[in-house]
């Protein structure tokens, strides 16, 4: 896997002892982290732990009441907010959504839609999209700006489990292809991307940090979320744990997905497929062709094989 991180360059954004206060209450305090090019930083934590607040402080939507937030000069941000409801009275197609905050060339729009696998929806009104399609449209919009820093606030909300894996794969491939820094927010403790370089666990303050594996075993994390959550956090590296998740919804989604995708399974590569796949990604894009286009249509299923592939790779890594 290519490594885009370059420690010599200054980070895209860095927070030093940052805190945000509202109505006399500290929403979050003492936050320290930075995001560099090619780095994926994931903020996790329970509801109200200050994840969104921290992200907003990082991109300058909120001013920190203490500490410092430094952004690289001329930093170009692509933002997918946590909540975005578009009033029915606003006629907005996916295509028009792309140029919401700045002009884009037609080709840039097409590429972003192809990369997120929703080229066929470019003329659809955003209000008619499903949860997963809408999240992809928002991601495409943020991506089309060619940002230095992509900030994704719960990008998998309203997306079922397979869609979730596919979206995480997409996020990873965006990082690999463009080398942008990614700040990801998740309350889905059971799926934290293994590609995440740093997980920061928030609960009004930074309670622990490190690689996904390190955080899932840290005593602070276990205290905050309990050992069951810790098991499920490790889902990506221990695939078998996952099928026995205590969470009813996920278990259900998983079941229905299996049912849906089994007929196609024979066509996928299993096991060692992941390596080929990842390389194909990097190479084809360095040649500038529209690999995303080919990849797009089978996203609905590809992620299933990706999940298996992932499992295989993790085993080989461990």
């Amino acid at each position, binding site marked *: 896997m290519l490594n885009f991180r370059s420690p010599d360059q200054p980070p895209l954004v860095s927070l030093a002892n940052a805190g945000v206060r509202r109505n006399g209450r500290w929403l979050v305090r003492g936050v320290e982290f930075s995001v560099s090019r090619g780095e994926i930083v994931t903020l996790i934590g329970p509801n109200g732990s200050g994840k969104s607040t921290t992200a*907003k402080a990082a*991109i*300058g*939507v909120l001013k920190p009441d203490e500490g410092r937030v430094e952004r690289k000069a001329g930093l170009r*941000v*692509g*933002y997918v*907010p946590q909540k*975005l409801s*578009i*009033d029915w*009275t*606003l*006629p*907005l*197609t996916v295509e*028009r*959504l792309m140029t*919401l*905050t*700045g002009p884009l060339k037609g080709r840039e729009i097409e590429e972003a839609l192809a990369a997120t696998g929703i080229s*066929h*929806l470019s003329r*659809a*009104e955003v209000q*008619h999209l499903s949860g997963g399609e809408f999240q992809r449209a928002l991601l495409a919009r943020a991506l089309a*700006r060619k940002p230095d820093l992509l*900030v994704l606030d719960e990008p998998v909300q309203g997306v079922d489990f397979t869609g979730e894996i596919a979206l995480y794969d997409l996020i990873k491939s965006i990082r690999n292809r463009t080398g942008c820094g990614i700040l990801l927010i998740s309350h889905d403790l059971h799926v934290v991307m293994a590609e995440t370089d740093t997980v920061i666990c928030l609960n009004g303050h930074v309670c622990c940090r490190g690689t996904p594996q390190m955080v899932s075993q840290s005593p602070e994390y276990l205290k905050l979320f309990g050992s069951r959550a810790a098991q499920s956090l490790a889902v990506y590296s221990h695939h078998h744990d996952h099928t026995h998740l205590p969470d009813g919804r996920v278990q259900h989604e998983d079941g229905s997905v299996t049912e849906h995708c089994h*007929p*196609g399974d024979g*066509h*996928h*590569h299993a096991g060692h497929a992941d390596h080929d796949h990842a390389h194909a990604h990097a190479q084809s894009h360095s040649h500038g062709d529209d690999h995303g286009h*080919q990849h797009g*249509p*089978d*996203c*609905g*299923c*590809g992620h299933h*094989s990706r999940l298996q592939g992932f499992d295989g790779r993790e085993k080989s890594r461990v």
Partner: protein
Amino acid sequence: MFDDFFTRALIAGIGLAITVGPLGCFVIWRRMAYFGDTMAHSALLGVALSLLFELNLMLSVFLVAATVSLLLLVLQRRGALSTDALLGILSHSALSIGLVMVAFMTWVRIDLVGFLFGDILAVSEADIDLVWGGGILVLFAIVYLWRPLLASTVNPELAEAEGLQPERAKLYFMLLMALVIAIAMKIVGILLITSLLIIPAATARRFATSPEIMAVLASLIGALAVTGGLFGSLHWDTPSGPSIVVAALGLFVLSLLPFGRRSQGAVEHSSPGHSSHGGHH
């Protein structure tokens, strides 16, 4: 064929309708109908103040409407009461204070009905200049502010994160609203201004495929409503302001009738599952 006063009314009314079309779209996209109403109602306080201090009427109305909208922004930020309740308080107290002040000023006799419902048939040539001059100014400003306004309508934080300035756009939008209310008061009156903002925009929604098309359509539909309303008022000898609103309502009802446009929802829901099951790997 028509009397001069009628032609003047038509020209002024159409100018106003074209101006308020895009603003009206933002009012409904941002769910600010009641907000617009509040600003309009506060115009009567502006009338009273202009009489009391012998200020220019339009300037006074503009200042009061702008002040009320800024006051609301400040109160909203405090967050003690819901916006809804704040609007209710501001709207009717401004209207009532205006009415009470007018009652105290026994030395002036004003045509209250004219202010409440407008008197488009009394429009002078100077008024026409003002409507069209002000209108062109407002439209230019809207075009200039279009992207930040639209982006912050969708999500202010998104707009801010990506380098636009939603707060500033919102402030300018409020000032434009205040300006339009000051201009429109004479034509459709304080109580009916919001309807001219909202009804044509709501009518345009059904036929619009993009925000920009909706703004243009709202202007055209508004102009059509003004024309229809004025001819109706001439023909049946009905009050002009309400006749325009009734005409606008008629167009809105027509737009609800089920003709033509069935396809859209059907097309989008029929997008099939992904065709490829990884066959080309």
